[in-house]
């Protein structure tokens, strides 16, 4: 029995010196290099406009790099068929983007249907997914998105992204539009879900406590560049000025909560 063989973790996503500029010439990202290993949750943290969302969209090729390359499972996104690549990667966005003319069931089972699963399997998968995200299938399958609360919509958005069992999940401020209590609740559930599913997740947020709670590692973005990648512990102790600015904001909050 060799224990030694548990070599370095397998790299799933790799950014190699990636730059992205708008057609107008504005540089949104430059010199971006990092890797994401199988099963880890990488949080992209930074202010609005720091380039987090652009970096995320480079992964499922909603945008293409102007320089450098993004490798998914060792292959450049430009060498993937974009449709196959995107079906391989779940995608959750803040406004959820649920189809308003589809029921919850139709929304959730869209990708399996596009993939040509047999009807019976699609149906049982939809029930399974709703249960997974904590919604009663009997009650919710036939509802339309406008008949759901913000938190319920977000859960359906996660269920839809997980539908065809993609190994990678991208989330762009998935909990941003929720009220603080619902947000707290869904985050906790999400951590539990992640422990069960073991997906590779890249998640964009500007909320420090969310980053610390969800991330196995935190990638700090500032004006289109990566400042550094930290474990939550390293992040809290970091002397890097931008990182410590986020942390001191967190401390200020804590002190306020304790009462002066």
């Amino acid at each position, binding site marked *: 029995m060799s224990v030694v063989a548990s070599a370095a973790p397998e790299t799933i996503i790799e950014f190699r010196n990636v730059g992205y500029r708008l057609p107008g010439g504005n540089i949104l990202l430059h010199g971006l290099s990092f890797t994401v290993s199988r099963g880890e949750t990488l949080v992209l943290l930074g202010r609005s406009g720091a380039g987090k969302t652009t970096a995320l969209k480079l992964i499922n090729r909603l945008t293409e790099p102007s320089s450098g390359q993004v490798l998914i499972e060792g292959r450049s996104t430009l060498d993937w068929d974009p*449709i196959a690549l*995107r079906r391989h990667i779940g*995608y959750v966005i803040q406004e959820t983007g*649920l*189809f308003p003319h589809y029921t919850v069931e139709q929304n959730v089972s869209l990708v399996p249907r596009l993939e040509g699963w047999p009807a019976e399997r699609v149906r049982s998968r939809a029930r399974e997914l709703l249960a997974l995200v904590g919604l009663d299938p009997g009650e919710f399958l036939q509802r339309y998105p406008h008949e759901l609360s913000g938190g319920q919509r977000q859960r359906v958005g996660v269920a839809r992204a997980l539908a065809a069992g993609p190994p990678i999940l991208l989330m762009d401020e998935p909990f941003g539009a929720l009220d603080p209590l619902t947000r707290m609740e869904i985050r906790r559930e999400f951590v539990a879900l992640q422990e069960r599913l073991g997906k590779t997740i890249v998640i964009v947020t500007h909320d420090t406590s969310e980053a610390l709670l969800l991330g196995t590692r935190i990638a700090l973005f500032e004006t289109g560049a990566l400042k550094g990648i930290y474990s939550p512990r390293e992040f809290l102790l970091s002397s890097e000025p931008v990182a410590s600015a986020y942390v001191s904001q967190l401390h200020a909050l804590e002190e306020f909560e304790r009462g002066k």
Partner: protein
Amino acid sequence: MSFTDFFSRHANEILQATLEHVWLVGATMALAIAIGVPLGVLVARRPWLSRPILGSANVAETIPSLALLGFLLPVPWLGERADRLAITALTLYALLPIIRNTAAGIAGVDPAVREAARGMGMTQRQILFHVELPLSLSTVLAGVRVATVLTIGIATIAAAVGAGGLGEFIFRGLAMVNNQLILAGAIPAAALALAADFLLSVLERRLRPAR
């Protein structure tokens, strides 16, 4: 002779003309939808095509209808049959509202929905047929409604080239200075327009996406 007498005496003729009118309008709308919706999609997808397409449709709109029929008369295949000629001219008029509303409907689809659709790996075609068109259906239909009402009115001109319809009565009435004849064409045409407007607005409301 009272007006009601006149109507009941000529009931068969009026019914005949109304059916011709409905056929002209129906054929026109089928053609205008078949051409206008794809053009509207094109306008929404390729902004640089929007000026030439909407511009041409706009120009067609400004040509007086009698003159348009005159222009089309010498065109080989078109000039051979009166209904062919009339339907072509009417279609040119009906295009603009349909193109414009289709483009507006597609442009109005929530960007988050389109982005989610792309991110899930739907092809452009799937996004168009499963997301964009269903979500803009009520807007497209509003354009169809405007075009239909417009066409019902303009179709009375078709009688000028012998394509029949309710315009027959109007032209005959004008020639004979007979108001009853004019009304025998105008009243059913107005009734048709109101009925079409009502039915299509009901349909439009039912298809409007909930939010």
